[in-house]
């Protein structure tokens, strides 16, 4: 049973079709890349998977435990609760909040205490808040951000902001993690570090990862499978080595950015 299966996914804005008839399958534990030239509709796919956009047609199914849930049309927060989490291409941290708060907010759905407890700080508040802090700190430790937990996230250097966004995404306790250009703007050293980190968290957290990335070294190194998107259509699917030699893919990239691998 695949974790995620997307069938005939289409999204059009007015006359423009951003994604058309895309089919995608992710198996549990896979690390899959989604590549394609700029404007191909990769981020739109992420937005559709996370409910930020409502699909025009098609279906998205996610297996949750032993059930398969149709998630197209659900609100983003419901989808997150079912186990999909993501980062953003143009980092969307809660900039004026501390690093710790950023992670704690993402843990919101696991907090069970009610409003009354929060108003009057009943024992359940203290109990759960402590747990939240503990979890958040251990997560930050993994991303080497624990020493900066009280800093405002806007003050972090770029690379750390990227890492924090991944940490925040993990805090929602996802089964499927969508990473939107996690290495954008990083230098080769940082990228290499990040590559290892992604690989590590996948195993540690038992994740399935779908990754948008322009940095082909990263993609080729860690992705087990790739989907190639062009003009909103999936033009190729396969192992990295296969994709590298796929004619249509090379054509799609020509005049744009030849994959340097």
């Amino acid at each position, binding site marked *: 049973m695949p974790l995620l299966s997307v069938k005939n996914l289409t999204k059009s804005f007015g006359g423009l079709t951003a994604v058309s008839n895309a089919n995608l399958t992710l198996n549990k534990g896979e690390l899959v890349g989604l590549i394609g030239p700029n404007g191909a509709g990769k981020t739109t796919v992420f937005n559709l998977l996370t*409910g*930020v956009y409502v699909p025009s047609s098609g279906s998205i199914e996610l297996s949750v435990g032993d059930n398969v849930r149709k998630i197209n049309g659900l609100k983003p927060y419901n989808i997150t609760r079912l186990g999909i989490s993501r980062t953003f291409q143009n980092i969307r941290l*809660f900039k004026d*909040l501390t690093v710790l708060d950023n992670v704690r907010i993402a843990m919101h*759905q696991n*907090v069970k205490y009610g409003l009354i407890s929060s108003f009057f700080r009943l024992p359940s508040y*203290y109990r759960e808040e402590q747990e939240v802090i503990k979890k958040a700190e251990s997560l930050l430790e993994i991303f080497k951000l624990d020493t900066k937990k009280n800093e405002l996230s806007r003050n972090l250097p770029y690379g750390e902001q990227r890492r924090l966004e991944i940490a925040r995404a993990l805090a929602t306790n996802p089964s499927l993690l969508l990473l939107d250009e996690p290495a954008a703007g990083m230098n080769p050293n940082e990228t290499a570090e990040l590559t290892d980190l992604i690989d590590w968290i996948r195993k540690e957290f038992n994740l399935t990862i779908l990754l948008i990335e322009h940095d082909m070294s990263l993609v080729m190194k860690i992705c087990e499978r790739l989907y190639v998107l062009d003009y909103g259509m999936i033009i190729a699917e396969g192992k990295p080595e296969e994709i590298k030699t796929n004619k249509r893919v090379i054509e799609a990239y020509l005049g744009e950015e030849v994959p340097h691998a």
Partner: protein
Amino acid sequence: MKQLFSFKNLKYSACVVALFGVIQLLISLNIFDDYYQITIATICINIILAVSLNLIAGFTGQFSLGHAGFMSIGAYACALITLNINSNYSFFLGIFVGAILSALLGFVIGIPTLRLKGDYLAIATLGMAEIIKIIAQNLEFTGGAAGLSDIPQYTNWVWLFFFTAGTVVVIKNFINSSHGRACVSIREDEIASEVMGINTTKYKVLAFVIGAFFAGIAGALYSTYFYVINPGLFGFLKSVDILVIVVIGGMGSIRGSIIASILLAIVSTYLQDFPEIRMILYSLILVVVMLAREFIKTKKINLDILNIKKYIKTNGAR
């Protein structure tokens, strides 16, 4: 349980009790006579209003220009109850019903309007408050334009302090809980917040409802302190007054709202001595304060830029 009695909590509680004690002492020694007590009442009511609006506008980032509308619901409900039910409990019943009705209205109005953003939300909430005002102006049982008068004065310093401290504590606790953080995340980035599993509509409405609830309490206290209410009191300018306190104190700062409430009340008592040009001075102060604040802030930003330059210098250019 241990944390409940933590040093920090104890310290805060001690401060609150001490503040109450000091003012109570000053009142019983008649150093704070009737006149100062009225000023204190105004301050307390403004603190409740400002802190509750801050929850909506400052923490949740929903720009509301209709807070006076919620206040009026609490004021009218409490006034009508205390005027018509002659019992020792009518004051509490009035406050309770006023706050609940106000919260209910916040819920009913919040659901459709909170889909709007920024200035559009502001103008919609402004319209909402105006509609409430016009309805109150034309209903028989609210006394029409004359409003209600001879409302028994139940509110006294003790209740004012109790409700003000209560409002501040409850809202502060809320902000520092997971629910409050959910609200703040909406202000920071609504889309990211939703993707992080937060039902943004629910939390926007919740902030609106809680804010309305406390505005209702403030209205109820107002009506049972100042004897008289009428629709004209709860117009656009009242909403603006509350917003001014929130902005001067700082969006998203409860401490700021409290300090600004006190400062503005003191400024207002000083301005009473300049009856002819009172409003001219007030408006000038308002403009100058806003400009000065921005001036100081940009200076700070400049300092930050220097720091970044320094940072780049010491860490080498990337």
